[in-house]
């Protein structure tokens, strides 16, 4: 059962639960326990499972470790401390592991300097992918009492026959940065490793989770502790997330972000950042991309004459040495500013940060709090930060987001459930350690929270797949990765190579393929994802690093382009990995839009002519609207920009869409000769992803055509050839049709040929060990891994629609990428009229539609009937050739 202890223990009770030496050291070093520690010391000393959420600087590390060290110290004093692992600590980040190692060894050294008794000392060791072979050997002979590791290394350790012997005495299992694991497959992978560990050593252990900001907390707690058979394990949740004060502001670099030139906006952004840096001792700047990080560092140094020793970049593409160097400088307080994409977001120790500047929307309340929360290191300090945004949708979004953060409203995460690809890896791992009966293995897997609802049939399908059942008997010698006897209902080890397959291919992070983009004189501009390249045709204009380029041709991992300044991009940028706006936040934005529109209300009806005027002169916010804006954590420019954004939308079409009023706008894209149907559906991308495809399918069926979709957090666009006419009645019919069927069925049938399906299938095939990254000591190039995923997919489908990798791909798309239950609910409410809709026609897209057309994730829903599809293609090609 998940419990929420309401009152902290008294300071005395908390300290009393500690070993005397540990207590003395703690009291010498700190005045008193921090709020989370006043729960955790006692709870952990009672061997209870605990989830602690608290911001940086709240003594989180010691919340977990003080009681553990205390327990080990007691052992040591009783002369019972052996050379074995008592505690495993797992974090998603190697850099964090290094920190924890230092944060444990440092205090331990202090501690022992005060103890004159000849006792055995508590040892700490790190084991990650970086650990040298010699060190691993040493660890095998003399294991550390506290083992610091990553999810991937842990999965390898539990399969190492010799090392497992050292794990038999594990009493504590600590997971740090739980919020970075509970919502993705990496965490799912870890959850199975933990249950396997418990199975291997034959007893349970105390589970301790630490995380910054996450909701719902109960889901996180369940993820941490899992089940024992049908029984949910107990867990106490210690929530000290909000004990830190927040001071956030969203700002617009200029008053008029629509008409200001890029140069003016850039100037203002950099001046703002510069001012913040000068005002503070140490500033942390977050951008959303690595290239953005580089750009900011470059510009700050160039424009304001900072020395390179004052400002540094920190992101995943930089070498480990460079990153460690930057962290070291930060800790010593020698840097004025560090600029980072995501790498400094987690709890790496970087000393005291006075202020955080975030450029662009962090996309969720949790992330905003996480990032800005890095400032004001001590628990009692206020976290201070500015969020600088350069388009009006993001401005509205960030205003509402920061407002929600200050009001302590948190958006939610979900844990992927029953992922068959991750399960495949672990069944291969399990098969190596002993012979399993199906029932026994199935029961163990179900102890992990993400697999508690796994069906036996799905479990068996994975076992059968791994046994090579999908190829003929004569080929199974090559294909099978486990031994499986159907009649006996048992599986186990097969072949010598499989052990290596497990060790060399474990993990859940897909290989990203970056393709270099070069001009014809071989100047490097940046890189794009290979999938993005596959969508480019010669002549396409796309944006990279803020500039336009026209694509000419590609040659082995290089794309050649010509600069195309001022040209309209023909292909939207690829946002596949960008975080989606959460549903909760989207609804909050909807409410804000409604309130703003009601407040402005009176300017209605001045007509389009006034809009021309407004283009040049911005109105000053006034009346009720100003009151609303004044209550938001935003600056004066932002207030003006948001106010005018709403006024323009109202003047132009008389309506501001919100979560209870869906605006559907038909328009034409004159340059591209395309028909656009824009749905202002403000529900976040996971829901829009599903909704857009349902509508695209229905439009495609009605008009007998392919339909492209462009999906954003604030809505989606259906795009067809201009020859396809879509009138008001068609749109009405579309809503009826979309509401008529089971959303899951429509999507399953129609996402088959999409780019998303192909990409995700390839990742899943790799994670299921169908396409290996390393085999027989050879690293297999991504190119080779990729041999036409569409054809592999087709071949796999011929085996069965329930082939586990295919099933997992659909599951991942429908349940993780999309939010199907909510999308279906919205459709239902739309059909019933509970969500109103309004259909309008525009010559030029309305202001609220602009971002939806130019940005977003693009995909195409193709006609299902392939014969007709090819014929249509033929007809069009011939017509085009005739026209010359």
């Amino acid at each position, binding site marked *: 059962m998940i419990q929420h202890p309401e009152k902290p223990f008294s300071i005395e009770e908390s300290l009393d639960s500690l070993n005397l030496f540990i207590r003395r050291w703690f009291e010498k070093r700190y005045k008193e326990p921090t709020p989370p520690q006043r729960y955790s010391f006692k709870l952990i000393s009672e061997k209870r499972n605990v989830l602690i959420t608290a911001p940086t600087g709240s003594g989180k590390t010691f919340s977990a470790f003080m009681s553990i060290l205390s327990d080990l110290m007691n052992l040591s004093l009783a002369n019972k401390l052996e050379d074995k692992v008592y505690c495993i600590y797992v974090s998603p980040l190697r850099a964090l592991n290094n920190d924890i190692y230092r944060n444990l060894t440092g205090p331990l050294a202090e501690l022992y300097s005060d103890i004159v008794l000849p006792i055995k000392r508590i040892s700490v060791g790190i084991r990650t992918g970086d650990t040298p072979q010699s060190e691993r050997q040493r660890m095998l002979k003399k294991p550390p009492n506290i083992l610091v590791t990553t999810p991937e290394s842990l999965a390898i350790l539990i399969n190492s026959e010799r090392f497992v012997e050292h794990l038999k005495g594990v009493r504590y299992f600590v997971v740090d940065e739980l919020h970075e694991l509970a919502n993705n497959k990496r965490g799912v992978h870890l959850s199975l490793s933990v249950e396997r560990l418990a199975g291997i050593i034959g007893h349970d252990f105390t589970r301790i989770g630490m995380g910054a900001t996450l909701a719902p907390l109960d889901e996180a707690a369940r993820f941490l502790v899992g089940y024992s058979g049908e029984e949910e394990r107990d867990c106490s949740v210690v929530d000290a997330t909000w004990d830190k004060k927040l001071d956030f502001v969203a700002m617009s670099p200029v008053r008029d972000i629509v008409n200001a030139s890029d140069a003016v906006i850039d100037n203002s952004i950099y001046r703002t950042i510069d001012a913040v840096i000068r005002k503070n001792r140490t500033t942390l700047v977050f951008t959303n991309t690595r290239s953005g990080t580089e750009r900011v560092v470059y510009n700050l140094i160039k424009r304001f004459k900072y020395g390179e020793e004052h400002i540094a970049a920190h992101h995943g593409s930089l070498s480990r040495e460079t990153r460690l160097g930057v962290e070291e400088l930060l800790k010593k307080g020698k840097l004025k500013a560090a600029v980072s994409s995501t790498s400094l977001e987690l709890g790496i120790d970087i000393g005291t940060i006075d202020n955080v500047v975030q450029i662009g929307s962090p996309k969720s309340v949790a992330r905003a709090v996480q990032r800005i929360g890095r400032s004001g290191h001590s628990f009692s300090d206020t976290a201070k930060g500015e969020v600088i945004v350069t388009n009006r949708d993001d401005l509205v979004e960030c205003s509402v987001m920061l407002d929600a953060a200050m009001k302590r409203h948190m958006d939610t995460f979900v844990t992927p459930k029953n992922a068959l690809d991750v399960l495949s890896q672990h069944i291969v791992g399990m098969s190596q350690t002993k012979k399993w009966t199906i029932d026994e293995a199935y029961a163990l897997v179900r102890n992990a929270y993400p697999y508690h609802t796994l069906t036996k049939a799905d479990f068996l399908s994975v076992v059968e797949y791994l046994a090579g059942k*999908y190829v003929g008997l004569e*080929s199974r010698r090559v294909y099978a990765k486990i031994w499986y006897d159907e009649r006996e209902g048992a599986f186990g080890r097969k072949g010598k190579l499989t052990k290596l397959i497990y060790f060399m291919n474990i993990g859940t992070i897909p290989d990203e393929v970056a393709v270099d983009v070069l001009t014809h004189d071989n100047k490097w501009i940046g890189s794009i994802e290979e999938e993005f390249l596959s969508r480019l*045709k010669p002549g396409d204009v796309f944006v990279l690093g803020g500039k336009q380029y026209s694509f000419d041709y590609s040659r082995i991992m290089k794309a050649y382009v010509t600069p195309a300044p001022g040209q309209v991009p023909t292909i939207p940028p690829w946002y596949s990995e960008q975080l989606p706006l959460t549903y909760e936040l989207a609804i909050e934005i909807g409410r804000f839009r409604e309130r703003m529109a009601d407040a402005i209300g009176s300017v209605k009806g001045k007509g389009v002519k006034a809009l021309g005027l407004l283009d040049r002169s911005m109105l000053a916010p006034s009346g009720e609207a100003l009151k609303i804006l004044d209550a938001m954590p935003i600056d004066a420019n932002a207030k003006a920009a948001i106010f005018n954004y709403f006024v323009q939308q109202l003047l132009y079409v008389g309506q501001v869409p919100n979560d209870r009023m869906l605006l559907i706008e038909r328009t034409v894209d004159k340059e591209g000769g*395309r028909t656009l149907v824009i749905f202002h559906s403000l529900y976040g991308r996971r829901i829009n992803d599903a909704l857009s495809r349902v509508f695209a399918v229905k439009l495609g069926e009605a008009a007998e055509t392919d339909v492209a979709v462009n999906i954003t957090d604030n809505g989606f666009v259906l795009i067809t050839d201009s020859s396809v006419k879509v009138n008001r009645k068609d749109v009405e019919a579309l809503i009826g049709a979309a509401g008529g069927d089971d959303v899951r069925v429509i999507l399953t049938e129609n996402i088959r040929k999409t780019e998303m399906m192909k990409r995700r299938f390839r990742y899943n095939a790799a994670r299921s060990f169908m*396409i*290996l990254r390393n085999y027989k000591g*050879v690293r297999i190039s991504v190119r080779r891994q990729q041999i036409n995923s569409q054809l592999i997919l*087709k071949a796999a489908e011929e085996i069965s629609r329930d082939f586990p990798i295919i099933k997992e791909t659909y599951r991942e798309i429908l349940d993780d990428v999309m939010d199907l239950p909510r999308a279906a609910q919205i459709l239902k409410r739309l059909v019933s009229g509970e969500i109103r809709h309004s259909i309008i026609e525009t010559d030029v897209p309305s202001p609220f539609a602009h971002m939806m057309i130019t940005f977003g994730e693009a995909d195409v829903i193709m006609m299902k009937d392939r014969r007709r599809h090819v014929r249509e293609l033929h007809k069009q090609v011939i017509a*085009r050739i005739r026209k010359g």
Partner: protein
Amino acid sequence: MEIARGVEILEGLPVLYIRDLSAIVCTDLHLGYEGVSADRGVFLPKANLRHIKEELKDAISRTGAERIIVDGDIKNEFSHVHVEEFNETREFVDFLRYSLGLKAITLIKGNHDNFIDRLKEPFGMELYTQEALIGGYLFFHGEEAPHEKGGKLLIMGHVHPSIAIYNRLGAKEKLKCFLHGRMKDKREILVLPAMNFFAAGFSVNAERGIGRLAPVFRDMLDVDSMEALCIGEGETLNFGRIKGLRDISL
């Protein structure tokens, strides 16, 4: 689709039928492909041989042909005969002989067919190296230019031709195709698409360097002048000359 007297592309199939030889012609089967690739860590589901069998069964039932000519690359590996190739080749030959009742199996050796000689005897195949003039038709695989000067129709494989069409919406469609046209010396030539299931093909209208792939395209034949006969669903459609398909987007 009849492309010359008595020479017919079977609708919707990557297969040619020559009436006066009573033969069906196909190329680039790459049998054993999945097994070979599994050995390299990519465990593809088996689909190739099953599809080839289905298509050839269809071809024989439509034409009643008694002979098959494979214009090269019956198997996949360059350097040796992989066990999966051996097994699949045997299964394939048995299928042709006993299930389809074919009387003769002819193979023009391609670049992947080294070591196939040792399969010749047990499998009872008629074997030619690189090219063969059979009944006035010049079959050659294609990684070398044809040496023979005669032949009323040249038939080639090797390049796995396909065309790529992009549409304005950003979708890309790749279609396997036959290439049909005339050599500079006026002889008629037909390039066959690959039968292999996993070969999406070389996009003749979009990619460059076909001359490096097959020397016949260097100075004997202009690929732009050839017509693309694309395989659709149950039908084959003429998409016109490659020249017209360059840079096309709908």
